[in-house]
């Protein structure tokens, strides 16, 4: 078991299975097929992301450095949340980027589906966590990986 302390962007407590992207998470490329074709598992469709491509994202604790790509990113995350296809939480090793921040904040203010979000967990976090591990987030930004 390892613990990491980050900064809370959207508060919340949650426990879920980790899904880890070591490269930048391209929000549009990742969600576009699942949103377009009603895939409730939100299967990742980013061909450039070998860690996630083809894996379901809904209900997972998405662990990532930052998001990259199109500025529709925040809107896409908002839509995923409004349609109940979102990851249960987002855990960033780096400071959150503007598109991801927009997405989790839009979801928090405009939908009932909040995504607890913690950033600046450090590179050690992404080195320690692996897809399939259990991740627990506390209200104060402490993240436990086991």
């Amino acid at each position, binding site marked *: 078991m390892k613990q990491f302390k980050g900064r809370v962007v959207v508060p919340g407590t949650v426990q879920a299975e980790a899904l880890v992207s070591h490269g930048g998470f391209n929000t549009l490329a990742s969600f576009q097929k699942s949103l*377009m074709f009603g895939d409730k598992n939100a299967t990742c469709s980013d061909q450039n992301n070998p860690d996630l491509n083809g894996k379901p994202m809904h209900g997972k604790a998405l662990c990532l450095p930052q998001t990259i790509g199109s*500025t*529709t990113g*925040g*809107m896409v995350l908002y*839509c995923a949340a409004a349609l109940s296809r979102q990851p249960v939480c987002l855990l960033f090793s780096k400071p959150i980027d503007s598109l991801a921040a*927009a997405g989790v*904040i839009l979801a928090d203010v405009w939908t009932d589906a909040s995504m607890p979000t913690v950033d600046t967990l450090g590179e050690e976090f992404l080195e320690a966590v692996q897809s399939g591990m259990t991740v627990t987030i506390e209200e104060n930004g402490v993240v436990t990986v086991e």
Partner: protein
Amino acid sequence: MTMKLTEEQQQILDGGKGEVHAKIMKTLVMYGEAFGAEEMVPVTGKRGHLVTSFGLSVMKPVYELMDQLIEAGALSEQPFSVDPRPLDKHVPANLLQNIFFKVMYSKQTDYEAQLEKLGILGDDAFTCTCYMDEVGNIPQRGEVLSWAESSAVVYANSVCGARCNRNSGILELFGSIVGCVPSFGLLTNEGRKASWVVEVRTTARPEAQVLGSAIGMKVMEDVPYVKGLTPWLGTELTQEAKDYLKDFGAATASNGAVGLYHIADLTPEAAEQGEALIAEGAQTYVVDDAELERVRSNYPVIWKERDAAPKLCFVGCPHLSLAQLQDWTKSLAEALAAQGRSKVAVPTVFTAAPGVLEAFEQTAEATTLKALGVVASYICPLMYMNNPLCGKMPVITNSNKLRTYTTARYYTSAEILQRISGEVH
């Protein structure tokens, strides 16, 4: 909330203009606080630019939100342009694809009606290159913008010297509605400093879209200061240099998350401030021929049949300038003549802003291009490609953005020319 707001901003946040305005302000304040912003600053740009141009039937939450804004009278303070339309009947598509498009974009008419109510500039304001002279949404240096569209934001910041964060869709509209945005990141002098120095040491002018891709993948969201391009781009922002930077920037923004770059001795801030723009402790990334080849060789080819003959070619993501349209036409006419052909060997679409296409129509090259069998369209190639029917087609492009988001296969512009002229099959 800890951000210092003006009396008017606080009143909006407290519900003085109604619940919807309060939620808009709350969203912007939370957004700013996530980045340590201490205040909101006025949007001083005269026009906005939105990223969401498509009436995808599954984006219901977005249209419901737009309805809420319209009903509450929460409209944009600045008229805005918006990304390209997803459909154009002139672009080749079979019967099945056309039926699919109609279903997929069944909300297009409704959404465009919403955009009209919210404040779109006009019926021809659909392009990702709103900063072209023929479109006229050209930000001025130092202006604060509330824009989205990654390729437009990076161009506005880097080439025009305006100030805009990489805002998300919806957030950019919120800033235009309340007339202010949180001050952080690329809106601040500190945030515009480069944390990477990129040294270009190639033996020839690097392909804009591969260089941009390499830099984007390396620096992610950071600001790069690029040295070594002067032999090829010069020190003046000529149309050719601006076109190069348009394509370069789009690749940095889609293959990474770059919102601003500086080109030594060329882009406005670099020309004025030089290496004072480089932050202390900046990292260095050397790009030579081998590095560009390494980056390119890692692009996945996800066609079912790797050696399939291309069925369609897109050139113009982001949209082409008038000069690019004319240059492509001349090069293609020469290449076809050299092959003894009168028409393109692969169905080809050149895309540009409606205003640019209108100007192009007045030139001699427009007639030539039609005769060569090329379709000139205002469409968004990315939106065209985003469905399983088109996704299965072997489509080629010189756009690294289109490659990133779709199944389209990337070739350099020279390689594209060889293929559409029939020189290479």
